[in-house]
């Protein structure tokens, strides 16, 4: 190599490095006018000690204290404790072999629940992660999304006792570094792509629509990122309609704007609508302009929800039902777990509802209730995610009691 060509290469490399640094700096700075700060107007929504978040017990709830007897269901259905002793149980994904992998938030664990002699065997598969709420399974591998850490564990079902450190995909997915509202929900779609939530990193603020408040999809290795939905405050549950294959997702509405809402949303992304805008932070629910971040025609061009799902109800997990156990009129309905309100004087939710979809609209009906007492304003459980099993029964995770309930139908 001649000196001349060497110096040219050095020059090119130096130029590349300068460009890379410039891009990195640009990526760190918010575009002008956008602020990461909460923009709630504190003059209109004052401090209120009745509106604080609820604790999640980090230790085991004894079996006899799990409130399964309080659960109310439509005639013919019954609930039982499927498994327990796994504090913080939230997201569930199941392998073809029937292993359930379960993510948590605060406790930082991922559990594996297997069947042995008709009983459940619970293992702490991973621990010490930062809110590993995102779990997905494909081709023998478990994908775990913690805040700012993505790991794939290959051939995981043969390594349940020592999963190892896995393949680090964090840099491939290159997700934003902010923590708030960035515990993940992830799921493989019918197109084989991995869909990933990126929440707004605030209660209410202007976000860079190219960075936060989205649903994205990636190839399984983290390449080929596309933004499929924008203006989504924080969805932590989605599924695809069994017939139309359209993406349906829950979205948690903003806080500190009163008990009435704006209500949480059930949304649908119609086919060919990739990249559509769902309103955050300017327009909420079925067309309510934000009281703090004002913009003319705030709701113009915004995809309106298929249905509202209640003020502060915190709809998390959603799954469509295609099983054969439940009556025929449950076929293709969506079950939605509502985690229950914190930023609301009268507690609301703490249940599982069904959504009967019709085109781009949906009707909400109660399903699993009995866990909130309106008179004493207290609750007994926090349903978080739902998972239909192969036998047609439905699992519901309860983060507060570290339990999974199994809902079955036995006829009239």
């Amino acid at each position: 190599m001649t000196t001349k060509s060497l110096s040219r290469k050095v020059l090119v490399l130096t130029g590349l490095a300068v460009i890379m640094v410039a891009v990195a700096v640009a990526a760190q700075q918010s575009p002008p006018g956008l602020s990461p700060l909460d923009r709630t107007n504190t003059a209109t929504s004052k401090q209120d000690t009745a509106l604080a978040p609820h604790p999640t017990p980090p230790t085991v709830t004894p079996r006899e204290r799990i409130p399964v007897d309080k659960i109310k269901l439509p005639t013919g259905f019954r609930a039982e404790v499927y498994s327990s002793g796994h504090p913080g149980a939230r997201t569930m994904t199941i392998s073809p072999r029937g292993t359930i992998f379960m993510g948590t938030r605060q406790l930082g664990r991922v559990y594996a629940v297997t069947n042995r002699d008709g009983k459940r065997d619970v293992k702490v598969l991973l621990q010490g992660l930062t809110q590993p709420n995102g779990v997905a399974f494909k081709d023998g591998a478990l994908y775990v999304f913690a805040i700012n850490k993505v790991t794939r564990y290959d051939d995981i079902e043969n390594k349940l006792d020592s999963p190892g450190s896995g393949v680090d995909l964090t840099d491939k997915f290159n997700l934003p570094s902010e923590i708030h509202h960035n515990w993940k929900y992830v799921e493989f779609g019918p197109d084989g792509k991995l869909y990933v939530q990126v929440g707004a990193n605030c209660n209410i603020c202007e976000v860079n629509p190219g960075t936060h408040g989205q649903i994205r999809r990636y190839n399984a290795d983290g390449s080929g990122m596309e933004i499929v939905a924008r203006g989504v405050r924080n969805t932590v549950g989605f599924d695809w309609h069994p017939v139309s294959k359209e993406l349906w997702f829950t979205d948690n509405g903003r806080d500190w704007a009163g008990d009435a809402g704006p209500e949480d949303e059930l949304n649908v992304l119609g086919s060919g609508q990739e990249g559509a805008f769902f309103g955050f932070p300017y327009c909420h629910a079925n067309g309510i302009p934000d009281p703090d971040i004002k913009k003319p025609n705030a709701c113009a061009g915004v995809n309106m929800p298929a249905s509202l799902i209640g003020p502060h109800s915190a709809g998390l997990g959603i799954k469509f039902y295609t099983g054969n156990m439940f009556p025929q009129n449950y076929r293709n309905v969506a079950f939605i777990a509502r985690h229950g309100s914190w930023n609301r004087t009268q507690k609301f939710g703490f249940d599982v509802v069904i959504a009967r979809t019709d085109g781009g609209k949906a009707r909400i009906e109660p399903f699993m209730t009995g866990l909130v007492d309106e008179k004493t304003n207290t609750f007994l459980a926090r349903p978080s995610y739902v998972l239909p099993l192969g036998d047609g029964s439905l699992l519901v995770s309860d983060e507060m009691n570290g339990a999974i309930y199994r809902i079955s139908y036995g006829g009239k």
Partner: protein
Amino acid sequence: MDKMRDGNSVKNTETQRHRGAQARWRAAVGSVSLCLCVFNAVITAQTKPVAERIQQCTVCHGSDGNSRVKNTPSLAGQPEFFLLNQLVLMREGVRPIEPMKPYVKDLQDSDIEAIAQYFAALEPKPSEEIPDPALMQRGAELAASLRCASCHLPDFAGRQQIPRLARQRMDYLIYSMKQFRDNTRSGADTLMSNVVAGLSDADLTALAHYSASIRSEK
């Protein structure tokens, strides 16, 4: 204050146990010194190793649970659930703190419950740090706009998973808030990362001066 708690209460074992423990400790205080009495109650109720573990805690966190060591938090009067939760998170490696690792790695849930109960019942006392009146004033304004009292309660005594700030060490409060702001600690929830986002070191210092020295409304 009890009314406020009831308005937002969670009917779980932790909450009930917390209230039961509070009532027991209050009844036990009488005219005897709080520290002595509580310590005796714990060593009779628990096995010896737990008392030894508590002794280990007090080396850094203060013989009465009030720390005199820079950047090391006081534990006295923290909500029982908060102490329990944080010790579990440290044991699990979710909140890794190098000097704490040898002490938390073998803790059983029952040990953690006993330690949390012990320190929650001790009386919180102000540290030797001197709060600055101007900073306190600035901190009070910031705290109102950030709605600190909604979670930490008007007297900043904390509740459940939310820590006491009143009479905490100011240097520790600043250290802690920087961790939330700089995305190096997610906390029991991620809400604190949002609350302190974008605040300057001077803002955090003002918040610490106000929070640590707030007068109890009791």
